[in-house]
């Protein structure tokens, strides 16, 4: 998906962009209202992350002018303010969601997905490997045998594997991606989720392989016909 990050703190904007790039999305950065306005008019974005305090103007005004121009790009406002009255106003003038800085990148991704889901699924493409297909937006896993509705963590785990087939992930890496640091989970907890996915992949030509003592990877198996 194409993401426009409107944020005047350049380093933060770049950092967010790096995250999305790693997840396989493409992102643009605008540091001012003016730049953002130009980019929106030139290019189609699937979603816009909008900071409220910008050097040349206020996110409110920008958002209102976008909606007046009938530009319907989904917008998630990133605000440093905690006044909820602010956020209620934002929803009223056309923001789709808001997130309070600082946030967990995973939460931001989840909100993006939720917003896109409400907007009809633009931007996210289904991932197809072997005979399985994963829809990250709807959390649906289609196998020849059955269609599964995945739980959040199952989806995120499978997404990690399907975005990088045949790549080895250590338990630590997976734990870091899936769990909040503060949750302080046991590294073996990841095995529970691996097991859940494996159960759903029975009968498919994709499987999660265990490299004992190292980690896991998603590989294609060639089953006899």
């Amino acid at each position: 998906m194409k993401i426009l990050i409107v944020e005047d703190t350049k380093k933060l904007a770049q950092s967010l962009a790096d995250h999305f790039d790693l997840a396989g999305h493409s992102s643009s950065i605008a540091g001012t209202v003016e730049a953002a306005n130009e980019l929106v008019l030139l290019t189609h974005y699937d979603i816009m992350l909008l900071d409220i305090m910008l050097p040349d103007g206020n996110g409110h005004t920008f958002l209102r002018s976008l909606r007046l121009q009938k530009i319907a790009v989904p917008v998630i406002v990133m605000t440093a303010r905690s006044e909820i009255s602010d956020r209620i106003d934002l929803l009223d003038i056309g923001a789709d969601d808001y997130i309070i800085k600082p946030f967990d990148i995973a939460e931001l991704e989840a909100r993006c997905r939720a917003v896109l889901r409400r907007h009809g699924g633009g931007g996210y493409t289904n991932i197809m490997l072997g005979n399985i297909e994963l829809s990250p937006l709807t959390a649906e896993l289609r196998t020849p045998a059955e269609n599964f509705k995945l739980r959040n963590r199952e989806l995120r785990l499978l997404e990690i594997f399907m975005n990088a087939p045949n790549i080895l992930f250590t338990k630590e890496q997976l734990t870091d991606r899936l769990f909040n640091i503060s949750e302080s989970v046991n590294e073996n907890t990841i095995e529970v989720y691996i097991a859940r996915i494996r159960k759903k992949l029975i009968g498919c030509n994709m499987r999660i392989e265990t490299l004992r003592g190292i980690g896991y990877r998603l590989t294609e198996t060639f089953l006899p016909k």
Partner: protein
Amino acid sequence: MRKPISLRWRLLVPLIITAIITSALLYFTMRQVTKQAVQATQEALLEKAVTSILEQTRFTENNVEIDLPYNIFTMLGAISEDKVYYRVDLDGLFLTGYEDLRLKNLTVDNEYIFFSSTIFRGVKLRQATVQQLFLVNGKSRLIQITVAQTQLFQEAILRDMSRNAGVIGISFFGFALLVALLATRSFLRPINSLAGTVSRRGAHDLRPVKGPTPPELMPLVLSLNGFISRLTGTLRQTETFIAEAAHHIRTPLSLVKSESQLALRKSKSSENRKHLHNIIESVDMSIRSAGQLLDHALVLYRSEKIDEKRLDLAVVVQHVADNLQPAADLKDIIIKTEIINNGDIFVMADRVLLEVALRNMLDNAIKYSNPDQLIFVKMVLDQNFVRIIVLDNGRGIKGVKTKGIHKRFKRGSNVDDVIGSGLGLAIISEICIILGGSFILKNNKGVGACAILQLPVC
């Protein structure tokens, strides 16, 4: 320090003193006027008496004839029943009447009537004296006539008059007192109405005081308005400060968190990952603390400038739940809201504060819940109150001393492994006080904790 004198008394006392003085003046003036009038009447009669006697005086060859006018004497007595005395002297020698009545020594050329007061037989008298020279056979003869009267009537009239004047004076005083009271009341009315206007205002109503005000009260109104505008300024500064502080604290923290997560993701070394874990953990702690400190500042600020509105509770609760659902999703936690009683529930509250409280309650519930669990938000209407109950299936607060848990920076004894600042419950409690409700945190019947926010409905 001396107790300040009330405005009412400051006004009443001079008015009452004025009334007393005026009443007394009225009394004495009436007395004086009456006294003069009675005296003038008496003197007119005495004058008539002496002139009549003088007119009737005839000199014969060797003798003098004095005729006392019966009717004049009758009249002298008639109006007053006062005692009458007289004396007639011829050539300085007593002729007739009361010899012990003292004559005023008059010069010979004195031709008008002379009035004087004297004491006769222990009683005060008013007397008129007239004298005239007659030429009889070439001899000049001096006749002196004095008629005197007691002043008992005058005293009686004065007594009556004094009584009447007293009644009038007291009536006047009563009337003046009444007027003074009414005047005081009407004087104080603008002040009371100004006080009423100001006190009837909502807490956030910081418009300047307007409306018709007596010019004398203008300084008060002006300084009140000045104070209001300074207060407004201060509040606005506070608001700006909180917003600025939030921005300046949260933006760098965002960057730190984002960057460290990136680093963690890219890191291959388990040693580095350990360091990054530590960094992220402390950043999270800072984030939470900063967030709650800012929330707390916000609560304090809003409590000065509370903006109560009639809110549909279900809408507010659902809104908060919806906003937190993505965060809960990360732990595969589902937030379910339900209204136990049918119908809408409305509360009179500041929406910002209510949402901060609810957000903190749900935040706590998510934080202390395990993955794949449910969080229930129930709204129970109980007569004039609604209870918002947040139930989780987490570790609960079993065996935790609940005393002081609502105090700032105080945390439960079983949560050391979870990042928190200890401000969350304190914030909820403070908001509760502002909203006129109460907050209870207790163990659920099964597992987990049960947070109950009780608010009055409207």
